[in-house]
């Protein structure tokens, strides 16, 4: 369905525009948000407020919507327990996020705003994702009950 691909493209555009407008495409500003004892910049808190407010309504609407408008079913993660993977993943992610002031969205947006720097981070990030797939595969060949 062509309309679905167009919707996804528009959603990406809107997300990227939101990152750029909010200041979250700027690693220095993000790092300052995490620098609570130093040059603290609270902007990210306002970005979260805006995003969470809109999304809270979306989740309420979703409860009354049997299936998404352009698809037959939802692809939403099931409720799962908090496990060691989640905890260790979040810790590692946070260390990288703090080191560079970058998470995946702003990094991808950086590819057009400051490509010669962003390409290094994005390249390493893709390598990290590939490395995870390799480790995950190796682990689950030892213990087949591991989820992917």
């Amino acid at each position: 369905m062509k309309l679905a691909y167009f919707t996804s493209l528009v959603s990406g555009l809107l997300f990227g525009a939101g990152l750029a407008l909010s200041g979250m495409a700027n690693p220095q500003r993000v790092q300052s948000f995490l620098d609570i004892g130093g040059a603290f910049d609270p902007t990210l808190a306002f970005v979260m407020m805006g995003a969470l407010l809109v999304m809270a309504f979306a989740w309420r609407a979703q409860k009354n919507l049997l299936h998404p408008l352009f698809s037959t079913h939802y692809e939403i993660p099931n409720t799962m327990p908090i496990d060691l993977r989640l905890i260790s993943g979040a810790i590692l992610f946070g260390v990288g996020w703090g080191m560079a002031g970058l998470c995946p969205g702003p990094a991808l947006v950086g590819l057009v705003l400051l490509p010669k720097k962003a390409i290094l981070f994005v390249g390493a990030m893709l390598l990290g994702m590939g490395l995870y797939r390799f480790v995950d595969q190796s682990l689950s060949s030892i213990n087949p009950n591991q989820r992917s």
Partner: protein
Amino acid sequence: MIEIWNRAQPLQGFIGGAMIGAACTLMLLLLGRIAGISGLLARACQLTRPPTFDLLAIAFIFGLPLGAFIIDLIIKPVEVIYPNNNLILVLAGLLVGFGARLGSGCTSGHGVCGVSRLSPRSLFATGIFMLSGIVTVAFMHKFGIAS
């Protein structure tokens, strides 16, 4: 205290945040999907197990930098300062890519989509990576690594 508000952009941040929320809303209500960028990126680049050809993910990932480009071109130049050297940048990229996949999400999937859904996993993960980010920045300042 006043210095903080000199640098902050609360209104622009809120509007940009609402746009991010609207983007996630489109994905959820029209396509039934979570706008988690690490997951979508992995799917677009066939880095999932098993690899999938996911054209929806590709369209989203293609649109993302394009949206920022439009703001930069039409509304105002976007300020982008990378505070650290290339070695730190590469190490951080590795950690972000690996960690986001291991923890099943990043700032968008857990931080925006999951927290607004009040998912216990996402609330927990968001708390952890915020704390871990704060500790990392403090550590870098203490040892003179950060600018």
